[in-house]
């Protein structure tokens, strides 16, 4: 087995150490340790309720872990809220889309560009006429294939399109790493393939911690895979190692890919 730990810590964009979190009697994260390195896609897989989203929330700063620590870009961020972590360069998409539903698609993307640029406390100029912001927003929409829907109301989008918009808004932030919670869900075969192709190139801009149920996408994209079951990482390794791991077969992949 190749050694997946990187003793020097070089190129380590995200480091999660010994993270635990309980909801009452339910332990949703058990001593989770994992990292994300420059240029890679690290997929996080596991059955429903395994605690994938809970882990993402603790990394992004929405949930406080009971114990353990998170470092971004070599710096502990346990005391920082999610706004501060976003400003450090953490871009995130949600499993249940979190978008301004009354806005147009373009407005949501412009909001992202505005957050990245700063200057929110301007009270007079029309933000949708701000050429730099709109250009950045349109570029992000174009990259996920939503530019032709720019004028539509977000509430009128399909669930898959909302996921694409989430990715586009994250792109406007030009983050240093991405956390993506099931970006393929609801996309359909064609959409999944297109997004898979896109994420494949995106990893060179910023590494991605990818939660995904679509195993074709995971095995096509991931440099490494971590398997989470009942709040515990039962294995981390390359796609080959995970595919051949007996415990993983039993716990997870067996259910997904019946003979």
């Amino acid at each position: 087995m190749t050694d997946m730990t990187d003793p020097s810590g070089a190129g380590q964009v995200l480091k999660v150490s010994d993270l635990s979190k309980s909801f009452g009697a339910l332990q949703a994260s058990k001593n989770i340790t994992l990292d994300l390195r420059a240029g890679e896609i690290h997929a996080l897989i596991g059955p429903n309720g395994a605690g994938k989203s809970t882990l993402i929330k603790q990394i992004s700063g929405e949930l406080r872990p009971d114990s353990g620590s998170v470092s971004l870009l070599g710096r502990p961020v346990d005391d920082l809220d999610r706004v501060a972590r976003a400003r450090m360069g953490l871009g995130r998409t949600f499993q249940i889309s979190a978008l301004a539903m009354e806005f147009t698609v373009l407005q949501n993307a412009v909001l992202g560009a505005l957050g990245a640029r700063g200057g929110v406390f301007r009270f007079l100029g029309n933000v949708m006429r701000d050429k730099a912001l709109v250009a950045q927003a349109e570029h992000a929409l174009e990259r996920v294939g939503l530019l032709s829907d720019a004028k539509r109301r977000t509430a009128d989008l399909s669930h898959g399109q909302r996921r694409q918009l989430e990715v586009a808004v994250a792109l406007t932030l030009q983050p240093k790493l991405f956390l993506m919670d099931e970006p393929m869900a609801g996309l359909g075969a064609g959409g999944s393939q297109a997004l898979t192709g896109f994420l494949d190139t995106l990893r060179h801009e910023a590494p991605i911690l990818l939660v995904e149920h679509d195993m074709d996408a995971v095995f096509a994209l991931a440099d490494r895979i971590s398997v989470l079951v009942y709040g515990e990482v039962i294995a981390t390794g390359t796609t080959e190692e995970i595919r051949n791991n007996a415990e993983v077969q039993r716990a997870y992949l067996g259910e997904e890919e019946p003979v």
Partner: protein
Amino acid sequence: MNREKLLNTAVILLLLAIPLWAHMAEEPFLITLATKVAILALAGVGLNIALGIGGLVSLGHAAFFGIGGYAMGILAAHAQNYEPLAEWPMLIEGTNQMPVIWLVAVVASALAALVIGALSLRTSGVYFIMITLAFGQMLYYFAISWTAYGGEDGLSIWVRNEFPGLNTLVPLEFFLICYVILCAALWFAARLARAPFGLALSAARQCEARVETVGITPYQLRLTAFVISGAITGLAGALFADLNRFVSPTMLSWHTSGEIMIFVIIGGVGRLFGPVIGAALFILLEHLLGGISDYWQIYLGGLLLIIVLYARGGVIGAISGREVAHD
């Protein structure tokens, strides 16, 4: 031009045309009604920034309306009695100059909004409503016990305050002052809604997680909106006191907060001209139904119920349909 803009234009022109006609027809009472509409609409424009764009259901806006009213009352009372407000550390005299009074009203209500907002915006939902209500009631009871300025009986000013170059005793001229301020506030509110600040504030109402995820703190947005909102409502309070030449704790009571909110809801929450249409309908109903029955507010309550249940966008929404997001 879409239907909403057409409706807005018609309403703002009508609000100007009626007093102009009334001036020629020598119907000063009608001018007073139109002035009241303009002032209450201004208060509503203030609230609408917090409520409509920011989603902040404040039941304490009477505090700002009343602070504006008392700013006028106190300054003008000292001016009419030739008693300085303070002699130490420096001499501060009262004044009957509207621009000075407005400035004091705006600054005082903005400061109050900063304090009330900073504390109440740490909560949300029902708690926010209750805390803003509590602050409003606190000021209300303070005003009742503040006998130096009339206590429960309020404070009367004999002569309307002055504006350089105009005769504010002519009803039409005072109306025009209020009308121009209303138009300026509408212009500002329209710009604000489209500005970077308005986009972020609106997004924070729709989805707080989204705003935080792009690196913006909702609390700062909301506090700023609350201060701007309170300042505009405070300015309306100063004008309202000047219209009546009287200020009393009633301006600070929760009824007033409720009424301002009712204009906004009737007209259409978050619609630029919602407060104008709401205030006009409110004054019209008060005038028409108030003549028929003392219990006219029951009918108003019925209207409100219908709007809340069937016309979420208020009157404007019912006439012009779903709002087009920013263009």
